Every structure is written in C-alpha cells, then in structure tokens.
C-alpha cells in the first residue's frame, strides 16, 4: 500500500512536470510578447525600446530550456524577477509575478482559492447526494412513471446550456424577484452566515445542473447492481427492502460513481469559470479567464499547473478509495 502510494506520487509528479513543459512550449512557440503586455499594463504609450527592455529583463531572449530551468528552480527556492529596472521578490513556491498587479502569483492563488474551494464543496454537497438518491430511486422504480419523470426532467435540465441556466437564475431569482441576495464570497472564517447566504444560489444552480449527470449515471449503475445475484441472495435472506437496496445494491453501485466524482471535484477546484463569472465570485476560474484575455502568462500557467495537480491527486485518492470500498481491489 505504502509502496503503491509512493509510486503513484512519483508518477503524479511526472505528469505535472509534463504539463508545465507543454504550457511553457505553447506560450513560447505561440505569438507572445510579454514585454508588450507588461508595458501596456503601465502606460498606453509603448515604444519598441521599452518593450525590448522589459523582455530583456524578464529573460525572454534566453533559450527556452534555460527559462524553464529558472522557472522550475523558482518553484522550490524562490527567485527575484526584474521588470525593467524594478526587481520583485517572488518567494518559494514561486509561480511568477503578475504582469499587471506585480504581486507574486502564489499570493493571488491563495487569495482566490478559498472562494473556488467553497463553491466546489458546497456544490458537491448538493449534486452528489441528490444525484445518487434520484438515480437510485429511478433505478428502483425502473419503467414506471416516476422513473420516466426523473429521467425526463434530468434530461431537460441537462440539455439547457449551463451558462443560460445560470444567467436566467441570476436574472430572475436575484434581480427580478429578489428571492436570493446578490451572490458574493465572504470568508467562512469571518462570518459563516454571510459565507452561506452569499454562495447559496451558485451552489444550488451548479449543484442542480451537475446532479443530472449523476442521477443518470447512478441510475445505470444501480439498475445493474440490483440485477446482480447477490442482491437476489439478500432478498432471499428475508432482509428488508431498504437493507437490500441500500446495503447490498447501492454499496456496489456507488463505486463507479465515485470515480467520476473524484475527477469532477478536481475540475471544480481548478475553477468553475461560468459560475464564478456569472455570479461575480472572485475565484480562480474567473481569474484564469481574465488572465487569458490579458495575456497574463504567469497566472495562466499557474492555473494550469494547479488544475493538473488536482486532477492527478484526485485520481490517486479515488484509487485508494476503491481499495477501501472493494476488498477485491489490491493496490500493488
């Protein structure tokens, strides 16, 4: 088990390195000019000489491999980054300095991450139980009106583009009817109630929209497991319907659903772009989108790197969970 985790962590590290190389390559072989971006951020007039100076100080004219080495070393030791004549300190783990605010990107990430984490956790608390319960219910009532209604309505919600659903909810529930307060992020540690009320609508919208695919997935998995011989055995023992369905059916049916949950949760942590943008939550998804528009490369690369790390870690956690749930799975 321990050896397995160590091996997986090494593999995870390699995946993250590969991702960072690809991001670097995309940036440098694409049409990029960081000096221009940095210069435009400070003044509207940018003579070629100033752009050149900025690029020079950022090391843009060095070979790509050397730049990558400097960047990677900074992750572990920290480094100083020069913008023209000014030097900025970027402590480890250094992900670069924002071309605009001149803050270390690590700081920006730390600032923005709690909002995204809150969104992800709250939405998951809604879509996972809701999806699994509705899916199991549909599976148990397979072929009946209840089943058709559940499958049909989940399909309807699923077919509406998510941004449209989120925009309309915002328009009606906040602006027109005022059922919900203006969504915003307040740190949980400062005021748990404001944290809750500010995020409740984004949670509901994101949770409900995501729950439809979980309902359909759980339904399929549950239909399969309820047809298994061991569920018939459980019935033959004279166990109550509830025990048969939950303890024997659902326990087996939930395994594949957890795989999807792991990956989805990682994706949510990497930023829920639409949700953050539409509801005005200052999370890392919104930041990433802004950075792409602004060509703020250090922030983009940091977001990709963090996203990759989450996905890889989530995979590892899911595999370990597998071995806990299913005794037949041995991690070797």
């Amino acid at each position: 088990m321990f050896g397995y985790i160590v091996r997986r962590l090494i593999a995870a590290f390699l995946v993250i390195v590969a991702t960072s190389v690809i991001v670097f390559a995309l940036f440098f072989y694409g049409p990029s000019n960081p000096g221009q971006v940095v210069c435009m951020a400070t003044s509207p007039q940018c003579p070629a000489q100033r752009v050149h100076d900025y690029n020079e100080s950022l090391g843009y004219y060095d070979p790509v491999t050397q730049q990558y080495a400097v960047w990677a070393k900074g992750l572990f030791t920290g480094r100083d980054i020069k913008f023209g004549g000014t030097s900025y300190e970027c402590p480890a783990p250094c992900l670069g300095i924002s071309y605009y605010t001149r803050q270390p990107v690590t700081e920006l990430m730390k600032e923005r991450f709690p909002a995204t984490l809150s969104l992800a956790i709250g939405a998951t608390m809604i879509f996972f139980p809701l999806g699994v319960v509705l899916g199991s219910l549909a599976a148990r009532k397979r072929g009946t009106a209840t089943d058709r209604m559940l499958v049909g309505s989940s399909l309807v919600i699923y077919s509406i583009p998510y941004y449209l659903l989120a925009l309309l909810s915002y328009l009606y529930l906040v602006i027109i009817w005022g059922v919900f307060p203006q969504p915003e992020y307040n740190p949980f540690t400062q005021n748990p109630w404001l944290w809750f009320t500010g995020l409740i609508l984004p949670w509901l919208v994101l949770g409900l929209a995501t729950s439809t695919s979980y309902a359909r997935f759980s339904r399929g998995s549950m239909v399969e497991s309820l047809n298994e011989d061991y569920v018939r055995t459980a019935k033959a023992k004279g166990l109550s319907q509830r025990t048969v369905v939950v303890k024997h059916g659902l326990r087996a049916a939930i395994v594949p659903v957890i795989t999807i949950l792991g990956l989805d949760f990682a994706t949510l942590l990497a930023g829920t772009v639409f949700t953050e943008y539409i509801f005005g939550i200052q999370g890392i998804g919104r930041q990433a989108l802004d950075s792409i528009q602004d060509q703020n490369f250090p922030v983009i690369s940091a977001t990709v790197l963090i996203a990759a790390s989450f996905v890889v870690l989530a995979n590892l956690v899911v595999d370990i969970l597998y071995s806990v749930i299913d005794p037949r799975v041995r991690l070797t």
Partner: protein
Amino acid sequence: MSSPVEDITRPASDEPFLVVDDLTVKFPTADGLVQAVTGLSYTVEMGKTLGIVGESGSGKSVSSMAVVGLHDAKRTHISGSIRVGGTEIIGLSEQRMRRLRGNEVAMIFQDALAALHPFYRVGNQLAEAYLAHHPDASKRDANDKAVAMLDRVGIPQPDQRARDYPHQFSGGMRQRAMIAMALINDPKLLFADEPTTALDVTVQAQILDLLQDLQRDFGSAIVFITHDLGVIAEMADDVLVMYGGRAVEFGTCKAVMSKPQMPYTWGLLESIPELESDPGTRLLPIPGTPPSLLHPPTGCPFHPRCRFTGDVPGDLCERELPDLVPGVEGAGHLRRCHLRNPAETLANAAEKREV
C-alpha cells in the same frame, strides 16, 4: 410471539409441507406474454427430496422463485395455489413473505461467487441472515452462530475463514458457505437451484453428501433443481420432469429413471453416457431446440422434437395436449403422453439401439 395464523410451523393438517397446486406464472416482455409455467402441481413432504429436471427455459427455476417470492411481483402474474406448512403464500403481504424467506424457506443458488456479496465478509453475510430473523439476538450471538454453521458445513478453521471475503474462498468452500447461509435459520424447506453445476465433479460429490447429511439432521424438505440426471438419481426421492413450462412426468426416482414413461425423459436418459457402455457408442441427443414460451407449440409441447409421434394414431400429438395421468405402471407414476404404453415403446427403442 406471532399470532396463530402466522405460525406456519404448527401441523396445519396432514397435507405435505409444500403444496403447489395448478401454478401458472406469466410475465409480459417486449415480445409478448411469456407463459413460463402452466398448471404445475407438486407436493413435498418433510424430510423428502423432490428433484425437478428440465432444460433451460422449462420453467423449473421460475416456479421455485415464485415459491420463495423472489419474482418481480409487479411484472409477474401468478395464479394457482402455493401452500407452505398450510399457509397460502400467493397474495401474502410482502412483510409476511419476508418473514418466511430465509427462515422457513431458504434457497441455495447456483453460482456462489456471484450470489455472495463481494464487499462483505463471509461471516458477516451469514450473521446478517441470522439477525434478519432473530432481531433480539446480539451481533456476537449472530457471529458465533455463523462460525458454528461454517464449521457444520465442513469449513476448516471457521472462526478465521468467517473473516475472509468470498473471493478468498475456493469454489467448493463458497458453495459450502452458501449452504451454511441457507441453513442458518433451520429452514423447513430448502430450494437448491443447480447448487453443484458450477463445481467440478469431486467437489460436487462432497456437496451432495453434505446436503444429504444436513437433511438427515435438520429433517427439511428439499426441492432440488437441476438438469443433471446423475445428481437427481443420487439425491431425489421423487422426480418431476418439466418441459415447456409444464410437468410432463412425475414419479419416484427409481420408477422415472428405470422406466421412463415420456419420450422427453427417455431422451434425457439416453443422452447421458454410461460407465459400462462401449466407449464407441454414440450418445443420442434430443433433436431440435426447446419450445418458445411466447408461441408454444400446439398439442403436446414436445411433439416437434418427439421420435414417436408416428406411433400415435392420427395427428393427436399435434392437436391435443395430453393430460398428466397415471400410466400402466400405477397411480404414483404420472406422465403426459399420448402413447398407449410409452414404457414399452421406449424400452423397444432402447433395445433396438443397443443391437
């Protein structure tokens, strides 16, 4: 504890413990109504074993599922009567049915690897069956009972093996555990649905011995479902042969095996290799395929595959369903066949083959 009406252990009358009377099971499918079992009647006494033989789709499993109440109640249409210890169980509420299941009536399934839950320890699964019908028992009692049952079915070091998962057991051990689970509440009636089909021959013999031993100790009635006539010959007191959802022959094991009265039973017997026969002898398969239950053949369901329709005057076999009636052998041996004296016809045919 329970009211007298629900106490099915009392000697209700002198009728046998299990009485199935004119049982018909139908279920709708996308292609139409499947008539899985038609007009099936049989009885089993305490301490006796009834063997039900037939090929896949003959209705042998479906009829036993109905007795244990494991059919899908919403999709299945059942008519007729099933009495267990005097209690009519068709139309019984789900709750009362549940009290019966695993308690008075237990079931051993074919593939123990699939029939045991992969995520729970074997001992845990046995204890669960005990607790389901002994709600006042402690978990500890239930575990002790589980270990004792594993010991009883011949699993070595039962206290340790109880903590294993099903996949850590060998095939024979798993089937033993399955049997232990079925017997943990001392059922009076045991359905064994092809319990040895997935096992190799030596293990199969051990399991059959075990079942016979246990039956002697517990005195339960057993319904043994199989397509293997060799197993039936060893286990059963009476034999019921099913074809196309109907009983086609019924009698004592000895009578049915030695003097089959129905060409289908004869065909089954002829298709088994004999130990003493000449190794060059060809087996005689039954031609054709099992009948469709959606569109059953007219007349005798076996007539499209029967070699002896020519011995029956006219097209009686195609037109008319023969009744299940006693033949020349006596009242205890029933057959569904138009042949005047099937035993003789079949014996002649067998002799002709041997010459």
